């Protein structure tokens, strides 16, 4: 079977593909449990700095990133723990990075906002809003340069769509026909500012019109819908070199960062979104399809929780960077 045929089949049969469905479920739960633990460890001061959680956004994250291949790239922002996990980065290395340990994804130099894994082509978390989009463009250009069948996924928030770098990037992505899927995680707020107080157009996907680019909006609380659209757009990028803008409408259950008092949102609004929880919903759906039992759910939760515990233990036990290495890696030492 040719590659693209296989893709098509996989897409068509998503609801019949138990393995994939369970994989999506497990992945989302891993992110949830990982982030809950992160919050706890932050409160215990094992983790420092700014810390932004993905809780609530798991469907948007897993639905998009799971549609990529290992050789595809992800560029993200500072709210990227789950993005790294979904791209396959080891939870141990992620937690160790949050702890600032030498075994972390970035050797403890980056922290929560700067996870990275060359091996997984998770090309990093960037803490300046919009900054990673032009960089994603460059990797897209390199793919075309080398004529590789690869794709770049560039992930950012709703707030990032109002900054100049967004505009510059989408324009050249289309102009140069780069294999990039721009994913906007629209969680309705950029810090304390609701989308309609920051953006003249509140449906982010519509901004694609200015670049004659495919724009789509999807319910970011439904992992299957996200996956379906993402697969299509990734395919379009890979085979037709047509970039696109995908808006996933979702919600962060927690504050902007661990230090956000979150006074700008109504309790009811938060409750309402939690009522549509993507993990619960997929669980229920799979139960209805008889693909999952309550016992399975319990078991997966235990496994995932164990994985997170293991990550914490690993992080706890890992060594701190050696102060003697402070100046290492300011520059690349060897010439190639």
């Amino acid at each position: 079977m040719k590659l693209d045929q296989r893709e098509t089949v996989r897409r068509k049969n998503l609801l019949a593909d138990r393995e994939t469905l369970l994989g999506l479920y497990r992945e989302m739960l891993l992110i949830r449990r990982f982030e809950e633990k992160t919050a706890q460890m932050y409160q215990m001061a094992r983790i420092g700095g700014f810390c932004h959680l993905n809780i609530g956004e798991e469907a948007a994250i897993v639905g998009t990133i799971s549609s990529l291949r290992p050789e595809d790239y992800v560029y993200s922002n500072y709210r990227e723990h789950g993005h790294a996990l979904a791209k396959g980065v080891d939870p141990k290395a992620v937690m160790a990075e949050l702890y600032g340990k030498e075994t972390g994804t970035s050797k403890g130099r980056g922290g929560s906002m700067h996870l990275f894994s060359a091996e997984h082509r998770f090309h990093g978390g960037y803490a300046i809003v919009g900054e990673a989009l032009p960089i994603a463009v460059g990797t897209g250009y390199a793919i075309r340069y080398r004529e590789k069948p690869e794709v770049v996924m560039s992930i950012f928030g709703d707030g990032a769509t109002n900054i100049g770098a967004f505009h510059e990037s989408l324009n050249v992505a289309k102009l140069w026909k780069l294999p990039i899927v721009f994913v906007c995680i629209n969680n309705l707020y950029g810090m304390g500012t609701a989308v309609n107080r920051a953006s003249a157009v509140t449906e982010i996907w519509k901004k694609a019109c200015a670049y004659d680019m495919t724009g789509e909006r999807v319910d970011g609380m439904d992992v299957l819908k996200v996956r379906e659209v993402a697969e299509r757009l990734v395919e379009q990028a890979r085979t037709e070199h047509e970039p696109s803008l995908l808006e996933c409408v979702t919600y962060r259950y927690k504050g902007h960062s661990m230090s956000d008092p979150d006074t700008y949102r109504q309790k009811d609004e938060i409750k309402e979104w939690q009522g549509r929880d993507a993990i619960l919903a997929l669980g229920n759906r799979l139960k209805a399809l008889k693909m999952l039992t309550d016992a399975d759910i319990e078991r997966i939760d235990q496994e995932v929780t164990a994985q997170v515990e293991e990550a914490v233990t690993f992080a706890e036990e890992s060594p701190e960077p050696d102060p003697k290495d402070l100046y290492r890696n300011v520059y690349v030492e060897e010439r190639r």
Partner: protein
Amino acid sequence: MPVLTIRDALNQALREEMLRDESVFLLGEDIGLYDGSFKVTRGLYKEFGERRVLDTPIAEEVIVGTAIGAAMAGLRPVAEMMTINFILVAIDQVVNAAAHIHYMFGGGIAVPMVIRAPGGGGHQLGAQHSHSHENWFAHVPGLKVVAPGTPADAKGMLKAAIRDDNPVIFIENEGTYAVKGEVPEGEHLTPLDRNEVKREGHDLTICAHSRMLVVAMDAARELEQEGISAEVVDMRALRPLDMAPALASVRKTGHAITLEEGWRSFGIGSEIASRIYEEAFDDLDAPVARIGSAEVPAPYNKRLEKITFPGKADVIVTARALLGRN
């Protein structure tokens, strides 16, 4: 006199100026409804409304540009950069526009505006959120650059900055918002072009600004106990750079340390030191010692971060070495 934090002193300055002059307005990200990332603008949105406390999108070029264009139409905008790191995406507006407009248009128009921005490191925020670059701004004719380190100066200089007819870069520091001190009530104005001795001493001179002023004062107290009398000169006025108090001090002490939070090379200290050499060469008993941060992108790890940014211990060790008292 009331004792306030720097945070509250700044808040008071903003509020008083807004009450005094209807042309003063604030703009920035989450300064209004959210009350400000670091709560410097707390309560002002409620009191003055969204016309005068304008929440903006995350779009720093347009924040700075809006301030410039409003200033050119007669208002007195005070823009907040959530942290100074984000000014990097708007630096063209700051340098090529705000700083140069008055001159390049032959003096035909003024740009009375303030950009407030907290800088500095030490909070495990990593490479992209820990640097200040005040030396960049201090390099640019047309800008005024100040970096107060006490609550009284924070209030007095912010009020003066708002009333100044030039673009003023007003550098704050996350690490000093909670610093407390006496603050004169009401009409308290501190000149933007005047540095001053914050602590007298006779063995050596420490020049420092912003959070490093606090560190220098701490270090000086501790040095006192080992019989070293350090004079601390607050370099809060970085452009125009008022060297008079530092020079007078060095002429007296014969020894100088420059202390800054940023990277040492091509930093604030290199200019201050050069000026000291140029104008007090014969009074110096030893080369000026420059202390700055380690020349690395700020690491997240706490231990590494701690040895990256200068602290009291660095000042003390340097002071001893300078005076040959190891």
